[in-house]
């Protein structure tokens, strides 16, 4: 087991260095001179340009710049945003709770509907329920979520007026964000209606972001269940006269969950990609919107740092899932 952990860690380090190199290199080749962009419309004198160039270290050889960046990264220094002048690290972690809150809700939504749907489909294999659920899942899987968001806005915000179109909470409410999670902060503030308002703002983005994971989980649960239901020990349980509910719910689902949990773990990347679209459409102040805005503003340090932090996060989650999977399923370790 230790050998497995070490070998996985050994692949993590070169990948981490590579990811740093890529996010560093990208910004060096982005069109436009960062200093000229920073100076804005007013332009810049040659003297000042040279001064800034020296300040940012752009005049030094590229490998020295990379080394400085890399050592900075290891110490949690990702540079400052051109626009807000605040450290990228601080900005990232002040916005991150918004994305995390949305992603967690989306995942809960996806698992809460996807797991039962997959089980029901597998148990009723080939029958009406199976076909209906799996066709729906395939539609969800094929969904362009940016369009799905607009449709939901038309119906629920436009026609029915049930949900707001953007933001995390009504402007009516104001309270310090202690945890950064609006659902928790709104309860902690003790203001009437604040929690309900936060919940209503969260509803549509959650559905939009959760749709594709929901479809993936439903499909994965169904195929995992079907595989397990064909095993001998299920037949034994059936022969012993155990009730179908107990067989499906306890004996089969438990073993079918292993691949499903992996899928859930590995969909972090999908969630973050979805968050880019979802947050942009619903003006949700999280990482995804921040990245898109920064790309359009040519805020190089933010794009660079955000890209790196997101990639590292995906890598860490994947590594954790891999290790957990290795613990649950000894067959994997041997490879």
């Amino acid at each position, binding site marked *: 087991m230790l050998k497995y952990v070490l070998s996985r860690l050994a692949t993590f380090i070169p990948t981490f260095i590579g990811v740093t190199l890529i996010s560093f290199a990208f910004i060096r080749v982005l069109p436009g001179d960062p200093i000229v962009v920073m100076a804005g419309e007013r332009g810049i004198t040659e003297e000042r340009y040279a001064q800034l160039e020296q300040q940012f270290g752009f005049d030094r050889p590229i490998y020295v710049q990379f080394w400085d960046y890399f050592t900075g990264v290891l110490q949690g220094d990702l540079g400052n945003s051109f626009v807000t002048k605040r450290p990228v690290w601080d900005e990232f972690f002040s916005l991150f709770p918004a994305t995390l809150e949305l992603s967690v809700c989306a995942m809960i939504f996806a698992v809460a509907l996807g797991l039962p749907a997959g089980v029901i489909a597998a148990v009723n294999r080939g029958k009406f329920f199976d076909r209906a659920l799996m066709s729906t899942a*395939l539609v969800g899987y*094929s969904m362009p979520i940016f*369009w799905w968001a*607009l*449709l939901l*806005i*038309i119906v629920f915000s436009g026609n029915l007026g049930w949900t707001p179109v953007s933001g995390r909470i009504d402007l009516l409410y104001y309270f310090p964000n202690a945890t950064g999670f609006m659902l928790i902060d709104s309860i902690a503030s003790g203001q009437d209606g604040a929690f309900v308002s936060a919940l209503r703002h969260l509803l549509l983005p959650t559905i939009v972001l959760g749709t594709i994971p929901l479809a993936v989980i439903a499909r994965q649960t169904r195929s995992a269940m079907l595989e397990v239901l064909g095993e001998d020990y299920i037949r034994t349980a059936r022969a012993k006269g155990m009730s179908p509910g107990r067989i499906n719910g306890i004996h089969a689902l438990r073993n079918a969950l292993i691949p499903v949990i992996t899928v859930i773990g590995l969909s972090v990347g999908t969630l973050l990609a979805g968050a880019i679209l979802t947050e942009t459409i619903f003006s949700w102040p999280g990482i995804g919107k921040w990245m898109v805005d920064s790309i359009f503003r040519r805020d190089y340090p933010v794009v660079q740092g955000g890209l790196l932090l*997101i990639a590292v996060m995906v890598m860490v989650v*994947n590594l954790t899932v891999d290790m957990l999977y290795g613990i649950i399923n000894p067959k994997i370790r041997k490879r």
Partner: protein
Amino acid sequence: MDDALSAEAEMVHDRPGRLREFWFYFRENRGAVIGLWIFAVFAFLALFGPWIAPHDATAQFRAATLQPPVWQDGGTWSHILGTDPLGRDMLSRLIVGARYSFFVGIVVVSIAASGGIIVGLISGFAPKWLDSIIMRIMDIILAFPSLLLALVLVAILGPSLTNAMIAIAIVLQPHYVRLTRASVLSERQKDYVTSARVVGAGTLRLMVVTVLPNCLAPIIVQAALSFSTAILDAAALGFLGMGAQPPTPEWGTMLAEAREFILRAWWVVTFPGLAILVTVLAINLMGDGLRDALDPKLKRS
């Protein structure tokens, strides 16, 4: 006795060809056949769209801006699905737009698959150090969420449909590398490869002639699936303003242009997205059918 033997020989002789066997299994999946038909219509529109569309896709009918579809009050038969804020005919734009998505799918899959297969083959046959380097590079690409990586790549290269296609192809390519490498590694150990090597086949021949044809089934399925991913991602980039630029009637770009009118004119938003959904759904249905027909494990189950 003789009769039975000859009958058997006949049967062996009659064993259906690969293509026929494939079609036999593919046809069993009704969804896949429906998907194939929709895809055929889509491909037809992509090829002949401008000659089928009732109007020019960029012609602006100034007298009829934001006209609703024909079945609503104020709709006319000359603009069956209504018009957009600039008075352009929705139906014509959708029909002409098919070619952009089709083109995106074809180009992206060709680049990603050919590149991925070559790199994967090399990786599968290469010495361990080279294999490790290649796989680490693929890990690095896969660490970035695909849409984010494509977005940044397009920001670097400049927003256009061509650059969006290049970016998506780069992002999708590692999947082919991994898939090819995995099949190559499992095929390489089989006896027929050893015997080919003993007979004197060179590495290149082993790669391309001996091993590759036996690795193609999962790659074909992946090609179908990434065709739909490519269309979705290109539309998403267009929607974010980083794909095809207006006035190109690309479906994602059309949605971006229509966003501010969503509460006033539902049709400018609904139809382009529906077109994306139906196309992607059809391709995914086909992909499922392909997988069932090509994967021997699932056959007859």
